[in-house]
């Protein structure tokens, strides 16, 4: 049995080989009961995440995009096991998490998270080095070794340990704090890092620095990223594959080039159209998408996007669209791409 210090100096070994997905999410569902009224009765259910499945390949960056309230952050917290799913499971490198599989402590060592709010994610009463050295101590490192490790990680994220180690979070800028959060996520040598809108609160100039740092660290530490953002340009820059979510469900999933070149789902197309453009020919005066997403308490029947969709037909209200093939490694939850679905634009019969 190796000492904790030796164990935490490198990531845990690859179990299933390169072809085994690092993370498999199967039918992940989170419904929040909406309580109120007399005797706290359940008056409705918020379907925050509904039947979400995807594989995360080793070494890739998977971007998750969608409007606010579409379930991106709930998904990340479910994967982090910070909340209990209503249904579904998470498989890490071929092993289930829980009894008979990976222990929660081993799982937590391998999956870490960087939060959006760089200030709220650091304890204001701990110095920078204490904040970073906290989790190694939870995993059995001595305080002294943990702080040594914290200094190494500070240097790795480009902050001079001698200058920053003993400072407090409120003395630093947003970009510096986010670097510290990245160092804290890295200190356990995880294999997967969930980045929940890591640059959304930063200035554009700082944003680029942090994104490039994330790219470098991924190379250096052999990481896999789950990158959550509402900024389509950032997702395009960072990701290998993209998962588009709408109202708790997967709308489209595929390689970043394919999606950005030709979106298969009308929602993705509208999202991509909403980006500001320098090209006068692409200038438009109407918004590509009007209105707000419907209430997740009573989502529309069938396809959830049909209330805002240009191609909506009667059949869309009746059938929940399955994730249909829209290209190589590219799937979209739209009846147009589902042969034999009955939609006027779909192929009449299954090939």
């Amino acid at each position, binding site marked *: 049995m190796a000492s904790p210090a030796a164990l935490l100096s490198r990531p845990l070994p690859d179990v299933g080989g390169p072809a085994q997905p690092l993370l498999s999410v199967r039918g992940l569902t989170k419904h929040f009961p909406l309580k109120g009224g007399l005797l706290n009765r359940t008056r409705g259910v918020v379907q925050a995440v509904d039947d979400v499945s995807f594989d995360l390949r080793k070494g890739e960056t998977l971007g998750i995009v969608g409007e606010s309230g579409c379930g991106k952050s709930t998904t990340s917290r479910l994967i982090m096991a910070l909340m209990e799913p209503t249904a579904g499971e998470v498989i890490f490198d071929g092993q289930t998490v829980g009894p008979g599989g990976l222990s929660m402590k081993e799982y937590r060592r391998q999956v870490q998270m960087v939060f959006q709010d760089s200030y709220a994610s650091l304890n204001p009463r701990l110095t920078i080095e204490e904040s970073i050295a*906290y989790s190694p101590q939870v995993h059995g490192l001595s305080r002294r070794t943990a702080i040594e490790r914290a200094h190494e990680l500070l240097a790795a994220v480009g902050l001079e340990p001698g200058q920053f180690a003993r400072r407090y979070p409120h003395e630093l800028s947003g970009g510096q704090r986010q670097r510290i959060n990245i160092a804290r996520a890295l200190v356990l040598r995880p294999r997967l890092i969930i980045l929940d809108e890591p640059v959304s609160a930063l200035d554009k100039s700082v944003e680029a620095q942090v994104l490039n740092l994330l790219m470098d660290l991924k190379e250096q530490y052999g990481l896999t990223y789950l990158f959550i953002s509402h900024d389509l340009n950032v997702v395009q820059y960072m990701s290998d594959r993209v998962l588009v979510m709408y109202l708790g469900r997967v709308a489209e999933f595929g390689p970043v080039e394919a999606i950005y070149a030709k979106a298969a789902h009308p929602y993705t197309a509208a999202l991509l159209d909403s980006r500001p453009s320098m090209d006068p020919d692409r200038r438009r005066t109407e918004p590509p998408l009007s209105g707000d997403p419907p209430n997740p308490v009573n989502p529309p029947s069938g396809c959830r996007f049909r209330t805002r969709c240009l191609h909506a037909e009667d059949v869309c209200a009746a059938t929940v669209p399955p994730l249909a093939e829209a290209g190589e490694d590219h799937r979209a939850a739209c009846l147009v791409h589902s042969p034999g679905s009955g939609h006027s634009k779909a192929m009449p019969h299954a090939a």
Partner: protein
Amino acid sequence: MSSTAMSTTTAGLPLAPQPVASPGYWQGVWKRLRRDPVTLACGGILLLMLFAILAAPLLAPADPFQTSMLRRLRPVGTPNYILGSDELGRDMLTRLLYGGRLSWFIGITPVVIAFGVGGLLGIVAGFAGGWVNMLIMRVTDVFYAFPSVLLAVAISGALGAGVFNAILSLTLVFIPQIIRVAESTTTSVRNLDYVEAARGSGAGAMSIVRVHILPNVLGPIFVYATSLISVSMIIASGLSFLGLGTKPPEAEWGLMLNTLRSAIYSQPLLAMLPGLCIFVTSMCFNLVSDGLRAAMDVRN
């Protein structure tokens, strides 16, 4: 948090000059307090008062219980009676010094006990959530439904007069108030990302409470408790005034205010003295608590 010497850990890194250590949290609080003259002055007055009442046997010019039918209600400034004498001819300065001991004791003790009990229950309720929270908070709400003075009078009235019962009733009045503040502070801290991050790294509940919750909630709860001291002193005096607290011949500011009531027309200045003491003390406690709250906010 104490930190150990860092020389060995930084020595290996090529670029490390002297580690820049920021002042610790309490050093920062003290630095901000030093620039706040009102808080310093009030704190000074309170310290002087505390010293005076503790040293009452040495400072008092007379016996607090020595009555004299001949020298009743002497005005302020009478030779040998610097602050006059009360309705039974006892030296006023002596009575105020000894009375302060009891007033401070009855004012502060309930807040200290309520800080311990209420703080613990509130932090447990806030951190545990769920049915534990429900149980503690609903019971709290029952107490909270009554105005504090009314509740204190009701409990004291039921238990009977006396110092012990007055302290007990005030403690019961303050526990729900402190539970409320402790619970809401803990709930808001518990949902912050740094607590999520700690849970996400596999830390146990005890470690999270010790490292992440307590240091961030004890300050606000403590500040709230100090603001209750002034209320406590006023209610305690009120109980004595109503005959539910201290009993004569014991000296206590509220009780003195009551017994000197009849002299308000003949010796108004004299009759006001105990009230003035209560006013100055509770105001100082209030201002000190305000100053502490400002100084303990790191973003100032």
